[in-house]
Structures are given as structure tokens and as C-alpha cells.
């Protein structure tokens, strides 16, 4: 089997299992790739023999450790390239995606890493412009500045509640919060809440006053 074909399969399976809650079946994988089911079936046997895929009963396809790693790496390459083509070079989004599909098989890991770094630097230059581009890049960087984080903010909590810090958005204010012990995983209790959303929280035995805009940047989860 062609290496690029193998990578395409692994990428597709990994994508599918990320997007959906279940692993793909033959017909589902065939539908996503726009290929015939018979062809997918025979190709899967090749992938089983190369140790990338294991077949579960009922025609369910699962990736092995090696397969997942390869799939993940291809996805990352695809995203980085697509981001580079569309956001930095300004190409049309769908064209960029198609192009990325071709390039992703030939490009080396190092090139991707360097491209990623280049984009981070660009982001550093345009620091104050909180644009779409930056959001996309920061989700690509996988730092905690994940704006799509769905956990509730600490300013939604009530007085007297005990919660665990999950994430902190934004960089500017994060430093002092870290110094005061507000790190992900830390338990805090809310001692006072004013009607405007200003909080006094207790963390590590100290009371810390937070203004509303800082509080809304702190994502929390309830202890289970």
C-alpha cells in the first residue's frame, strides 16, 4: 500500500473517532472517504497486517497505538499547514485544506515544528489583535488559552461553594493568579460574592479579592 494512502486512512479513522463518540465501521469510513466499501475492506486487511489497525467484531475499526500516533501526527501536520496557507499566506480556506491534504504526506516533522514556531512568533507581533487567526493558532498550540473551554467560570458560582480550578484564560493576569496558588487542580472556596461579580475566594488559607473581569476568566469544575 502507498504510504500516503495509509496515512490518509489513519487520519480519517482518528478524525472520525474524535468527532463521534464511537469507532467507525466499514461503511462509515467508506462514506467519509468517498470510497467503495469493498475497497475499504481489503485495504483494512493490509493495515491490520502492518499493525496499524485492529478489527473488532461487527466491522468496527480501531487504531492500535502505532496507528493512532501516526494518525495524530498527520492531523497535526494538516492543521498546521492549513493554518499557514490560509491565515499567513491568505489562501482560500477550502483550497488550503485540499493543498494541505497533499502536502501533509511529504512534509517532515521538523518542518511542521518550525512552521508552528514561525506562526507563534507572528502571533507575538500582533499581540493586541485578538483576531480569528490568533484564536485558531492558540487552539493549535494547545495551551490553556483555549477559548472554547466549556467549563463554567468561577463568577457563576455562589457564595459558600467549593470548586476546583480547571483553566485560566488570557495571559496577562495569569501570573499573579499562579503566584497566589490559583493553578489548575487547586481547590478554592468562594467566601463572598458581590452583585457585580466581584469575588473573595479562599485559596491555600488566604483570602484573595478578584474583580469581575478576572473572575470570569477562571474556569472551574465542581468536585465530584
Amino acid at each position, binding site marked *: 500500500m502507498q504510504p500516503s494512502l495509509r496515512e490518509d486512512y489513519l487520519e480519517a479513522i482518528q478524525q472520525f473517532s474524535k468527532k463521534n463518540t464511537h469507532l467507525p465501521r466499514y461503511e462509515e469510513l467508506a462514506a467519509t472517504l468517498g470510497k467503495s466499501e469493498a475497497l475499504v475492506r481489503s485495504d483494512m486487511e493490509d493495515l491490520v497486517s502492518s499493525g496499524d489497525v485492529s478489527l473488532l467484531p461487527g466491522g468496527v475499526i480501531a487504531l492500535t497505538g502505532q496507528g493512532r500516533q501516526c494518525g495524530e501526527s498527520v492531523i497535526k501536520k494538516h492543521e498546521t499547514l492549513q493554518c499557514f496557507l490560509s491565515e499567513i499566506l491568505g489562501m482560500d480556506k477550502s483550497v488550503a485544506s485540499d493543498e494541505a491534504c497533499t502536502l501533509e504526506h511529504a512534509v517532515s516533522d521538523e518542518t511542521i*515544528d518550525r512552521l*508552528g*514556531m514561525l506562526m*507563534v512568533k507572528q502571533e507575538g507581533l500582533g499581540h*493586541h489583535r485578538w483576531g480569528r487567526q490568533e484564536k485558531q493558532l492558540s487552539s493549535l*498550540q*494547545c*495551551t*490553556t*488559552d*483555549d477559548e472554547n473551554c466549556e467549563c463554567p467560570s468561577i463568577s457563576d458560582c455562589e457564595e459558600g461553594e467549593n470548586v476546583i480550578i480547571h483553566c*485560566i484564560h488570557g*495571559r*496577562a*493576569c*495569569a*501570573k*499573579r*493568579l*499562579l*503566584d*497566589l*496558588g490559583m*493553578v*489548575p*487542580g*487547586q481547590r478554592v472556596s468562594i*467566601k*463572598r460574592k*458581590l*452583585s*457585580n461579580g*466581584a469575588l*473573595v475566594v479562599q*485559596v*491555600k*488559607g*488566604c*483570602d*484573595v*479579592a*478578584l*474583580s*469581575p*473581569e*478576572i473572575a470570569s476568566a477562571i474556569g472551574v469544575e465542581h468536585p465530584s
Partner: protein
Amino acid sequence: MKIALLGNPGSGKSLIFNQLTGLGIEVNRYPGSSVCLECGNVCYKKEKIEIVDLPGIYSLDGNSEEELLVRKFLEQGGAEVIVAVLDATKLERNLYLFTQVTEFSPRVIAVVNMIDEAERQGLIIDVDKLSTLLGVPVLLTAASEGRDIDRILPLALGSGRVSTLQVPYDHHIEAALKSLEKTLGAPRSRSLLALQGTGDDRILLDAAGAVAHEIELRHRMSVRQIIATNRHNLSRKIAASSVRQGDRKKTYDLDSLLTRVYPGVPILIAILFFLLLSVFVIGSWMQELIVQTFTTYIILPFTALELPPLVERIGFSVLIALEAGLGIAFPFIFTFYIGLSLLEDTGYMTRAAFLADRAMHRLGLHGEAIIPMVIGFGCTVPAVMSLRILKTRREQTIAAFLISMVPCSARTVVIAGIVAAFVGIFWAFSIYVIVFILIILTAVMLSRITPGEQFGMIVEMSALRRPQVRLVLAKSWLRIKEFLFIAMPLLIITSIGLGLLQYFGVTDAFEQLVAPITVTLLGLPEYASTALLFGIFRKELAFETLAVLAGTADLGSVMTAAQLYTFAIVSILFVPCISTIAVLYRQLGARVAILISVYSVFLGLTVGAIINMLVK
């Protein structure tokens, strides 16, 4: 020998410092920064030992002036032994800074302070265990009772040693530290900072930046967060195995009153009102006393000497400046500082900041800005100096504009001496109302046009405790000393300058020159412009000069009520005093200082002209 005290804000460092050094404290400005370093000397076993009180900080990684200063101090090995002061009631959080200090490998001892408070909370600290874990000698003290403070020096000099404590960082971070050390020869502490993007070595920063990025990709967490979490985890482990929670005595939580909107806000207003009122009452009584004594015993005998006119003029100017300085500095500013230090030492100011956050927000500021604003009621100079606590330049600029408009105690004297005395007490209050409205309008306007980003408030609430008279006085004394050093020379120089101008008849020419403004625009007598000019160098001198020029202390007989009112409001708004301009220049640069001066001239003249038009 030199030892330095280092610790979190509110860990009782200053109290220890005060008890170690007594009153022989000098305040030194660290070169190139506006942060104060307090130093004191003591004699121990016939050896002179210098003790430095480093500013209170939470971390050594940041870029605030205080953090930079302490970091530089540690990097340069500024002291032979570091005394790390830890708050026993918040040991875990305080150890976070300790773990960072050890990375600079100085000789250290740990002083666990406020052990009395910890005992009250039922916390039992195992000294031997803590000492083993930290790898340095540990001493339990209670500075407020003076307990075991005398053991600090012997222990520091005798057995301060480099800690063996090392934070077990995430293995990726450790790998990065190793590779940076191997490739660039950077020490651990510098590499850790570089990974967090701090430092000035470009090569190291670039190399560390690339590695940091890879680590961030792997962890879905910023390097700062990873490092902070590692340190906090170690601190938690140490605290957990050396601190035991025993029986806790129930105490009444005053915060249930102080941090709620009701009754917190009424309490806040009452406290501030009471502070200003008592400063005003005590201040005016003391001022009269000082000015009278000074005039009778020094100025009158001096004028009786009948020296040659030029010498007399200069000598007189110097004496007037001294009188002015003493007459305002001690009665008003010193009393105000005592009140302020009292509020700070009880821990109330952080509650005030929390409650004021919302109101300050409307002005484009944050809760913390209430502290400089309150100080501004006493004197604008220290208020501008305290602007450092605001985190962004935008906030500092807005607050600087507002502070220079807040009626300081000198301006209160003008209001009381001119308006309350000759026009009526109600009209005196109306001036306050006008000034506050102008402050709010200015703030709303500035918060729209000032560039820069908004930054929220993150303030640790200091524990409520009983203030110590000695410490309050020592603190107020240090502050007044700082004021005297900045303001006094300026007062004397400007006074001599103005005296000479008057001697050579330049002020008359000036009066003629600005007569169209004074007479036509503001409807004031010609000589009022000289009084306003004098007001630039000390606000309430405007009032005194006016009396001298008018030839009578009964201003009501020579000027109409409307004229007096206009004069008062113009002199209050018009140009901050020379000391303020100087300190604005030092703190925020020439541009802001000039802008504020120009704005206030414009504001003063406009408001004066409007009032003049209304009464006509």
C-alpha cells in the same frame, strides 16, 4: 556582614526589621527604580551588621519593579545570608516563594513568623521536620509579641546555609533545563526564568522559547503554569507533613460585616470621612500653633535684624519656605499618615479596595486605585508615589490626573480659609461637590481616550489585626521623611526664586501681563495673579499671599464673595504644586507631567470664567 529579610507581603517582615534595627532606619532608593529599600545597622558581637528589608513579593519570576529588584539582589549575592520570613498561618503559600529563593542558592534561614496567630488558629508546626525538609535551620517567632526575635541574628550568622531543597519539575522541564545548561552553560535559576520568557540574554531566551513551545504543545498548559504547579505541589507536600491542625478556637469573623455591600460600604464611607475630618481638625490646630510660634520666635526677630534688602529678601524666603513646610507637613500630612498607616496595619485597606472596585471601574480604574486616591486627600506627592501599585500605565496615567485634582490638605486650607471663613460653610462644601463632579467627568473622558488595556484586580486580603503603635509611628515617620526630602528643597528653591522675582519687580510686570485674564476673564483684582502664582509652589500659600497683597487678613472687606469664591476654586484646580509636578515627572515622565499641568490650568481658568460669568 549583610543580611536581608525576604518574604511575602504581610508576613511581618517589617515588624521583624523594626525590632531588629530599632529606629536607626535609612531609606535607600535602589538605583534605577522607585522602590524603596529599608536598611538599618546593628552591632552584634562587636561586628557591624547591615540589615536590608527587601520589598514584599509573591514570586521571583515576574517583571514588577519589586520582583526585578529582589531578583537582581539575589543574583548579585547582595547579602551573605537571606532570612526568609514565612507566615505561619499561610505556610503553604509562603513556601512557594521559598522554593524559588533556594534556586538562587544563597545561604538561608527560615523564620516562621506569626506563630502566635497560628497557635490561636490551632496550627501546630513541627520545627524539626520542617527544618529537615527545607534543609535550613528554622526558627518560630511571633514578632507582634517580640517572641524569639533576638534569636534571628545569632542563627542567621551562625548556621545560615544553602538549602538542599530542589523542586522536582516535570520531566520535560528538567530535560530542558539540562540541555540549556549543557548547550549554553546557563544556571538552573536563569534557565527557569528563560523558559518563562523572562531575562535579557537573547540567545538563552530564543533557545528556551523554542523548547518551551514544544513543552506547551505536549502538556496543553503554559510553561509558567507547569512550573508554578510543580512548586505549589512541593510546598503543599512540605506543609502537609510539617503542619498539623489542632483544635481551632472559634472567633468572630469581622469580614461578614466589612466585605458586604451593606454594611460594608457605609462603614467604608464613615471611616474615610472620619479620617479626613480628624486630620483636618487636628491639623488646623497644630498648624496654627506651629505657624504662630515660628513667626513670633524666628521670623519677627529676623526682620528686626534690618539686614541689607537683598539678603533680607533671600533669608525671608528661606524662612517662609521652612515655615510653610513645617506648617503643612507635620500638622496635616503627618497626622494623615498616622491615620493611613493605622488603616493599612489593621488590614482594612484591602477590604476598601474590594468594595471600591465597582465604583472605580466606572472611572476606568480598579479597586486598588482607592489607596492612592485616599492618600491624595492628605498630600498629592506621596499619592503619586504610591501609583506604583497600579499595574498598567493606563491606570497610572488616569489615576495621576485624578489624584492631582483631589483636594489635598493644603487645598483644604484654602477652602476653609477663604470660602468657609468669608463666604459660608455651605459654599465651601459646594466647592468639594464641583471638584468631585470634575474628577468624575475627567475620569470618564480619560477612560475613553487613554490608550492601553484594562487590567483587573487581584488583591490578597491581609488578615485583620490590631495595629502596633510603634510600627504605625515608625511607618509614618519614614513616609514624612521621604516627603520632606522631596518637597523641602523644592520649597526653599522656589521660595528664593519667587522672592528674587518680587525683589526685582518681575512679579509686577507679570501682573500687568496677565491682567486681561485675571481681571476680565475671572473678575479678580490684579494682584490675585501673583497669589495664584505663589500657589503653584504650595497651595495654601495662595491664600496667605493674597492676604499679604490685599494688605489685610480680613479678605471679606476687599473682595466680594463672588471674587473670593472664584479665587478659591481657580487656585484649587489650577496647576498642581511644584512638588507634585516634580514627582509626576519622576514617576510617569515629562509628557504626563506637562499634560496634567496644562489640563489643570485649562480647567481652572474655564471653571473660574464660568463662575465669573454666572455671577455677573
